């Protein structure tokens, strides 16, 4: 065989090899591309925050199905990988390490609530990945991490921003004195700290400022002690059992305070709304989404909630029947991530974080813009007043009119009335 022939043969062989390799890669690349993108997180599926956690999880599943039906993230299907953190911060670091190192997820997002976000922060920072938070409060204040973003609509300083609108709403009462009460628990205490600042800014005199233990069974002594101080308004930052206990104690003991409520967590949940029924009338509280006609500024939220409610019914889920509180937000924090990844076009955490910082997003919770610390650039908690509640039927809360929006002014559907005038 001549040398030329030898050369030809070898070139041919090489060519064939290359061709084969090329065909192989092209042949297999669709499936390689179809390898799903994994989004990992811990979620409170048991323990104290499980009510919220389970609701959030269903919303996140809806998001997954939605984005997958639209072609997924950068053309790949999305898969959720999640574990129950049992509402115990202790379990969180291990879960995120597992997600990142063993499950090899592409993105992590947080569990529900500040103290379950906090233990995941060092893990995220260590790996330098984008970390989306759900209802965290000032989690990034000390870390100053540039890839953290969270979705509590409470402005750059969430503790203060959370109750800012509430104080704006009650200006109509021209109050001079205020009583403040919070649960001895992380979120509630932070809310109250913020409320104290807002009260001082408004020049209110603080006549009562106390905390109650989460295990309190009877709230009537507390309400009486507050009444004895004769406050014009009464700010309450409470957790679900406290919220229910206080609403009842207020109904039983009565109060002369013109505005009552503010940061009562749990009144937005179906079980408590239906259970408390007419006792809620007059309470002036924060909310995130209510079925009032002006809520159209949240595009797609109505459809999302309808989808969720239908899911609960058809699948017989034991989660919140209405889902107003968390569903849009749990959907949105994934939606922001999804939009950013698709815009950047590749899994590049640096670029994605830059993009999220630079962009104003539109999602089911309206327009979102983040501060350098990853908080919302403006507060958008809404203030609602419970009224016209006749009985304990849950469906009345699914219709407009029971929780009228008092603030922000551009979407308001009512004007604040004194607590007693609605009783």
């Amino acid at each position, binding site marked *: 065989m001549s040398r030329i022939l030898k050369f030809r043969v070898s070139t041919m062989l090489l060519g064939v090899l290359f061709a084969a390799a090329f065909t192989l890669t092209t042949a297999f690349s669709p499936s390689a591309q179809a390898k799903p993108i994994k989004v990992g997180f811990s979620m409170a*599926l048991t323990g104290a925050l499980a009510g919220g956690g389970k609701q959030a999880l269903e919303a996140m599943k809806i998001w997954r199905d939605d984005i997958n039906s639209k072609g997924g993230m950068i053309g790949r299907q999305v898969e959720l990988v999640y574990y129950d953190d049992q509402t115990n911060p*202790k379990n969180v670091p*291990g879960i995120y390490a*597992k997600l990142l190192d*063993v499950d090899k997820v592409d993105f992590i997002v947080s569990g529900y609530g500040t103290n379950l976000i*906090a*233990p995941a922060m060092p893990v995220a920072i*260590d790996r330098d990945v984008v970390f989306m938070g759900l209802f965290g409060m000032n989690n990034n204040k000390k870390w100053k991490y540039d890839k953290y973003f969270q979705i509590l609509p409470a402005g750059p300083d969430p503790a203060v921003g959370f109750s800012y609108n509430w104080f704006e709403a009650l200006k109509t009462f021209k109050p001079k004195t205020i009583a403040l009460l919070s649960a*001895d628990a992380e979120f509630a205490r932070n809310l109250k700290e913020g409320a104290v600042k807002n009260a001082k800014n408004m020049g209110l005199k603080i006549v009562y400022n106390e*905390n109650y233990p989460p295990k309190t069974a009877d709230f009537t002594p507390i309400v009486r002690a507050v009444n004895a101080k004769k406050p014009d308004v009464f700010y309450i930052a409470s957790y679900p059992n406290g919220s229910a206990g206080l609403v009842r104690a207020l109904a039983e003991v009565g109060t002369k305070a013109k505005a009552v409520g503010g940061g009562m967590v749990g009144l937005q949940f179906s079980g408590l709304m239906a259970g408390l029924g007419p006792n809620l009338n007059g309470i002036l509280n924060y909310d995130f989404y209510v079925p009032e006609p002006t809520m159209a500024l949240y595009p797609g939220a109505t459809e999302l909630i309808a989808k969720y409610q239908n899911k609960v019914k058809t699948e017989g889920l034991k989660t919140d029947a209405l889902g107003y509180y968390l569903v849009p937000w749990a959907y949105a924090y994934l939606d922001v991530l999804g939009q950013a990844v698709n815009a950047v076009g590749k899994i590049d955490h640096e670029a994605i974080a830059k993009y999220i910082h630079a962009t104003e997003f539109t999602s089911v919770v309206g327009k979102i813009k983040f501060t350098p610390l990853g908080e919302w650039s403006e507060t958008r908690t809404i203030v609602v007043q419970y009224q016209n509640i006749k009985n304990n039927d849950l469906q009345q809360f699914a219709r407009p009119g029971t929780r009228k929006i008092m603030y922000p002014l551009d979407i308001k559907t009512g004007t604040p009335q004194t607590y007693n005038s609605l009783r």
Partner: protein
Amino acid sequence: MLMRYRFEIGCVVALLACFLITQVELNRFYYFAGFAILQYVLISTAWNILGGYGGYINFGTAGFLGLGTYVAIAMIQFYGAGIIEQIIVAGALAGLLGLGIGYITLRLKGVYFAIATLAIAIVLETFVNNWDYVGGAAGVSILPPRTPELLGITIVDRKGGGIFYNNKEFLFFLMGALAIMSVWIARTVEFGKLGRGLNAIKDNEEAAECMGVPTLKLKLIATVISGSLMGVAGAVFPSYLTFVDPPTAFNLEFAVNSLAMPMIGGTFTWIGPVVGSILLGTVQQVAIVTISSEINLLIIGLLLVIFVTIAPHGIVGWFMKKNK
């Protein structure tokens, strides 16, 4: 000769193994899971010194642990104390707490001691809730130092010549060392006069007293050792979690596990709590990332019921019976 010191050699080997594991780049998950399991080795070994040997149930594990955690936090807040200082002070104060409660209630029947420890945990949690210096009910976030030092040696940060690559690896090793120390203490107690006296107390306290055993003194010593080790376990917590609030530090889970793990392993010997905590701890860690639902809790419940009914002396007892 080697046989005689095989426990001591085992301790050294275990310590070396802990160190070597930190030098191998493993999945981080294993460090976190390992930390949690080792912490339980420490806690349940500590619990067993009084509960297993002496038969006095400490219901307030969470109280001792929470005290340790918050002493550490206060020291960090106060002057940025190093982890070793935190551990020593937390251990000392938790030991003092044990002495105090013990002095009040250890003359009484065991149930009074159990209830008193439960009460002390609640009282302490209330104080922490109202103590804003350590974050109060709102919790506190602790940033770990970037390059912690120990006796002038940089521990973490391989780039700067530290021993460990990362804080979590250092904490894993530290927890390993503390757990081994606690096992060593427990074994020393068990095979010493103190352990034999405690055993007599558990079997029949009045008879023990009448046979010359200074029961109150021995119980107090055991409570101090046990409480102090729990405080130590708590002191490492802030550095590990970086965010602590009272419900985390005073979690009922600690009380349950510190009792369940020795029960499942066998309370009468030092190996029992070690076996129990490794087994139950691993089951829990694995269950968190596999089953991951309320079934987790069901498994713990069923394991407890099944073990206390079928294997009353735990796994170790069951094996010893089999070998007889």
